[in-house]
């Protein structure tokens, strides 16, 4: 009897309690935050939004599963990060993109950008952003053929330019800021509705998943530069990928700085590059390039902002 209790005892180092928040719960919260945008997109572009999103999620999860299997790594699909990548990638392409091209994007994101660099947390660049850029450069026509939103399609015209395209000189009439706010515009699936992304972003900040520093500094920089260039700041903030980029892509933990000052530099940098490309570049939109560029210099920003540790001054 005496040692019966001791047979089952575990000895481990303190602490013996851990928070309930784990990686999959964080990823789950991000997925939840993307749902409003998903609904608006489904309403605006129709049923294909659902199937394309599901294809991307399934492809990302399957590819991660296979990659881990082939490289004999511990299975990581349970952390839900592949689901987030799949959703974000789907949200960054037009709703009429062919499934094959979407799956190629998933391969770039999961295998090349994430897996080969060592998996979750080790990637240098945001997988969804990088995949989107690869698709954009490889399949430029398909990636820039934007289906028109509900109500604007006619019998023979089903595609049209995005607001930023119109600004850059494509044929069309600029939509009102109200339409852009609610998302009745052309564009990538998940980036159109400012309000839906704002709801998701505020939800993430409220749940403590992301810090407001990056989104606020990113968006504020875009607005200030637009104003300085004599253009409508509200338009620039709601057009293209600024909202989804600021709240969901630039805030990716692995590829953004860890300390508040670093986050501020990162956010301002994203805003600057976005506006430089929009105003002076040959592409109408620059959010993905801006985030990718800032991803690359993130380690340097982190090194630059080492912080003061408590104490350490001998009296």
């Amino acid at each position, binding site marked *: 009897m005496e040692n019966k209790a001791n047979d089952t005892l575990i000895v481990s180092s*303190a602490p013996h309690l851990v928070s309930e928040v784990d990686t999959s719960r964080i990823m789950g919260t991000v997925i939840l935050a993307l749902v409003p945008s998903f609904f608006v997109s489904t309403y605006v572009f129709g049923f294909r939004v659902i199937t394309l999103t599901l294809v991307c999620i399934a492809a990302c999860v399957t590819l991660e599963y296979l990659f881990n299997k082939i490289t004999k790594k511990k299975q990581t699909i349970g952390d839900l990060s592949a689901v987030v990548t799949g959703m974000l990638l789907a949200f960054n392409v037009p709703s009429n993109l062919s499934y094959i091209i979407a799956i190629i994007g998933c391969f770039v994101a999961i295998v090349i950008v994430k897996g080969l660099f060592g998996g979750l947390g080790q990637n240098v660049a945001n997988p969804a952003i990088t995949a989107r850029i690869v698709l954009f450069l490889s399949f430029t026509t398909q990636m820039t053929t934007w289906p028109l939103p509900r109500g604007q399609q006619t019998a023979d015209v089903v595609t049209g330019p995005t607001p930023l395209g119109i600004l850059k000189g494509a044929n069309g009439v600029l939509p009102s800021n109200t339409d852009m706010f609610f998302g009745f515009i052309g564009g990538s699936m998940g980036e159109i509705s400012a309000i839906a992304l704002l709801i998701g972003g505020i939800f993430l900040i409220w749940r403590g998943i992301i810090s407001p520093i990056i989104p606020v500094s990113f968006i504020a920089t875009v607005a200030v530069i637009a104003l300085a260039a004599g253009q409508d700041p509200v338009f620039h903030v709601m057009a293209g990928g600024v909202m989804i980029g600021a709240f969901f892509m630039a805030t990716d933990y692995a590829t953004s700085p860890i300390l508040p000052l670093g986050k501020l530099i990162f956010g301002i940098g994203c805003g600057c590059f976005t506006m430089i490309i929009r105003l002076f570049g040959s592409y109408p939109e620059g959010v993905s390039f801006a985030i990718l560029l800032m991803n690359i210099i993130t380690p340097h920003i982190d090194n630059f902002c080492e912080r003061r540790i408590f*104490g350490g001054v001998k009296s």
Partner: protein
Amino acid sequence: MAEKKKHLQSIHVPHNKNTVECETERMPIPDFVYISMSQHIGAPCRPLVKKGDSVKVGQPIGDSDVPMSVPIHSSVSGIVSGIEESRSDNGGKNTLVVIEADKKQELWEGIQAPKAGSREEFIQAVRASGLVGLGGAAFPTHIKYNPKNIQDVTTLIINGAECEPFITSDHRIMVEETENIIDGALLVMKQLGMQEGFIGVEDNKPDAIAALRSMIEQKGNPNIEVIPLRSRYPQGAERVMVYEVTGKTMDAGVLPADLGVILSNVTSIAFIGQYFKNGIPLIAKRITVDGDAISRPANVLCPIGTKIADVVEFCGGYKEPPKKILMGGPMMGRAIFSDQLPVIKNNNAILIFAGEQAWVKEETACINCGRCYRACPFKLMPTLLSSAVKRRDAGALERLKVMQCMECGSCSYICPARRPLSFNNKLGKAIVKEAQSK
């Protein structure tokens, strides 16, 4: 002076103070007690008794000539049935004096309320009482109260934060032995020539704060102030407490006396109050017994040297086979390998778990979320430290100030990837010490 706007970084942990309403129960004397000769930081004691000796309650049974040590007293009356070598809770060797109790609990003749005329006499009496820091560190109190720069020490801080989840023994002391706390505080302040006293209590213990305040009033409003503190973890850590109460930054390895303060736990102070009244040395300890595998959670006053298994039996036994037994709280306590170990002076809780919190969680990849950075009270950077530990890079560890870490466990608690960051820092400190000794 106690006004301060900025707080250190902290985390929220569930309080789980299930036993807060449980009045302290005096445990019956067990058949045998196993009194450890190593119950404090410093040199272990050598037994003063041998097999067959009869001992009485409060009789010194262990002492040492080394300055950094404290005598150990018998908690029961009875016959010494043996001196045993055993393994201690931290895995080291330990000597136990085993006493078969006669249950008469006769007091030792030498017991009398000490006189404390001069400061030297007071310090001598504190040593003779067997008191060590009862907050958990077990630092010999007579050394703490005898700093070189005693003339610079102006402030007594009494730590009643009790920020560890589950534990309520300090809380019960504050409610049940309020007078001893204030008497002890006044005595220490008078003897050490300190002008002011602060009692820091987390604001989740309003009854304790009220009890202390009304006792201060009863005693004619001496210069002791109760400071309600935020109920955040690790509010009760020494260096956090000093900062939150005085705003002074205290480095690792620095004595509070160098900053003009002396910090004692409420339980230590209450013991001083009691000791200078009746002279009974430190022979019993209030312990919170809780956890999902114990039948009857309780606060128990048990003789030092009681086997944990006996305490468990007093609390109704195990509800289900335990998976983890902790001495101390879940954040900083030690998981022990056997319930046959005895209760020692600085024990304040025995927590027994069978459920999920007993398991070691599977570690996953760091996602660079920065939660550990935001959790660390001292603004250390646990992810950088853990990669420096992996490289065994003593230089980087020193530059990142791993020695400042107090192993509060906040970073490990908060980590969504379940990485043992706090434990890593412990390894990091060992690497730095090794490099320094070369």
